[in-house]
């Protein structure tokens, strides 16, 4: 039994220590905004926050989050009103949308640490996340907007 906080709630799961957090979130808790994209920490579709830092949930085992606080896109804000989500809507970033939870979680983690990132910092940080629809130009604009408008 592993206990941790998930989007502010205390939860515990009976599972193998090696079970990946991604599948626990998606299939056990049925919280599905966090996506499976590559299973290898290469695409960022599975990005969540663990104690406020971004992490590839497909690479994190259940035992690693014991006692920690995990936040998914569903826990980022109560009503799509996190500055990053507002900026994402204003810039109309999503196309197919599949990668966007991961993109938003990455961006939110960046701004939490670096409220006024340079363009180069944005590019470096956000290059961990793949968007196959090619929404990158809008991702940059949205991160800059979120930094500006808070």
């Amino acid at each position: 039994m592993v206990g941790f906080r998930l989007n502010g709630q205390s939860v515990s799961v009976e599972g193998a220590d090696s079970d990946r957090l991604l599948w626990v979130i998606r299939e056990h808790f049925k919280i599905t905004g966090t996506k499976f994209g590559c299973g290898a920490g290469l695409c960022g579709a599975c990005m969540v926050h663990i104690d406020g830092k971004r992490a590839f949930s497909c690479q994190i085992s259940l035992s690693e989050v014991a006692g920690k606080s995990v936040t998914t896109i569903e826990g980022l804000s109560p009503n799509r009103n996190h500055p990053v989500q507002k900026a994402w809507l204003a810039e109309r970033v999503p196309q197919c949308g599949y990668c966007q939870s991961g993109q938003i979680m990455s961006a939110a983690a960046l701004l939490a640490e670096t409220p006024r990132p340079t363009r180069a910092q944005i590019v470096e940080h956000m290059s961990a996340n793949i968007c196959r629809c090619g929404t990158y130009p809008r991702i940059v604009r949205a991160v800059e907007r979120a930094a500006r408008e808070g």
Partner: protein
Amino acid sequence: MKRKSERLEKRGINRREALAQLAGLTFSFTLSAGAVGTAAAQQAGLLQTAWVTIRPDGTISIMSPAAEMGQGSRTSLALIIAEELDADWSRVQVEMSPLDDKVYGNPRYGIMYTAGSASVPTYYKPLRMHAAQARRVLIDNVAEKWGVQATELTTEPGFVVHRASGRRMSYGEVATFARVPAVLPVVAEADLKSPANFRYLGKDVLRVDVPTKVDGSARYSIDMHAPGMLYGAVLRAPVEGSTPASVDKEAAAKTAGVIDVVTLPYGVGILARNPEAAFAAKSKLKVAWTAVSASNFDSSAMLDRYAERAKDLTVEGKVWDKAGDVAAMSEAKIVVEAVYRTDFAYHAQMEPLNALASVTAAGDAAEIWCGTQAPTVAQRAVARALNVSADKITLHPMLLGGGFGRRGHYDAEYVVDAALLSRAAKAPVKVIWTREDDIRNGRFRPMTGHYLKAGLATDGQVVAWRHRVASEEALAFQDAPRFKARNERAIFSMLGTEQPSYRLPNRLIDHVRQTDGMRLSSMRGTGNPPNAFVTESFIDELALAYKTDPLEFRRRLLVGVPRAGALLDVLAAMSNWSSKRPAGRGLGLCFRNEDGTLIGMVAEASVERRTGEVRVHNVWAAIDAGLALQPDNIAAQIEGAIVYTLGAVLSERVSMKNGAVEQSNFYDYQVPRLSDVPEIEVRVLSTSNPPSGIGEMGGNVSGAVANAIAAATGARVRHMPLTAERVLAALRG
């Protein structure tokens, strides 16, 4: 048109059906409830057509048959109806239409199929006509109620209005008593709204799916759950056509969480309690596969052979486009020849293929959740696999985490996976392909070999153009019945070799079909991105041979196409085409007429001469897709297709050894990341032409990037992708 309707009536088709067919779509127009005039029935009354339901509370549901994969046509089609109906968009709910090809099929394809940048262009007029008829029914009903002439009434969003008396009635109220005549009011094209009066089209309306995509609530099939659901994984043959000869299931079956190992006709399936157990067990399977002819396929050796076959004009090809006589080549002052190659490319849609199926215990019906570009095709594929009729399959089309052509195939193999495993398990099963499955069992844009030869007259005009392509045809693999119905033309290979805007009076463009048994697919733009690379590179080779600026050279080929001239003017200005760039940078241009959409792009690139590595700094794009219905969405699609295709131009390639794919995940199949992306500026020109396609058109950037590399280095790379090694070889070459 008149003659057609008479003919239809003679054949016994009633007026209503005739009208519907004239509008390009069959539809039914029925009052579903409240036909008897009791108050209660009127309360429950709905004004309903196949496309529109108006409820007493004023909310309106609009059916949209388009698969939504980020391109925006789910919203755009509904918006077209809302515009002509004069609906209040804030009260509109967009719903996925039922699965019915006759009513909702794409007019170009005859089935519900979201592909080919063909949704808005083909549905635009029929949906406007339908909505105008529905609006007329509203007006006629109010006219009767108020005892006024219909011509005295007009509409504002959600209301019928009588200007003379100031009376207004909401559409919801009309729905409570409206009667639909047996013969629908006739609407002529001239009765349609003038675009100058559009309230929604031409403005930017937020796509209905966007809000759900910033909070994780958007539902894809991979997100679905069903009570008692199991998880499935399938090991497929590494080589197409190969089947399991012998299977050692022991290690897989012993994996914790595994329930069963099921041998399928084409592979081996795992049933497990969670996805990780299914994946782990799959990797433990030991399968001997039958040898097939494709087992000897080696892509790099075979591509050389394709190039040889393209060059060999003694073999007869299948003509794609022909005019005049290419024998005029003998009159040319300058003759240029070249051989080009393009590699296999992989879709890499972000959502790995998956589906959820729930087959009845008797195996005689099923419910399916999947992301598909062709829901009725998938429905029929599942029906064939289960040996039941299609009406026994209830299919729920979900949002797609990327499509790009991968999810519209005749056999819907990833959906059938779930159906077969659910039948075996007698439980709902969600089958998820891993990324490695998705690549190794990918279906690729085919590799192609090209031979080109063109002759120039002293005035720079192209007197003869010869282009031959040798390739396998993707349509033959992905949808054999459709390929046959299209007279076995190599549509996906050849689209984009024809160049309708360029003046090429003597031309012969043909295809030599190869059949090596590879798994193939259309992929965003089908032939256009590779063919834009080939033909626009070659146009630049001609400009160079004629010692002319590439823009000037194209202008001469586009004399008599004012739309193209205007587009090039815009593009030249936005890119500062004639201004000098820093040392080491080159500008490359492409112009394309893809399915009636004109697009021009300029790329600015530099090359690291030591490594051959390419950096694209800027891309400017100007697009004329006729009347721009959703300008910002058009810009987004062009940006996206540019990024998508930059990968195919510079780095993405699938190679095969012994018939099997050599790549396996995003570390060895590298798609563009933010750090690879140039500054992109898109100018959307809205013109008075009918709306044409937009989703694929940015893919023509391949030509601009190749030309920018040549301009920056003086070296021409004739093999896509233009990898660092190939650029380096050309530099040294």
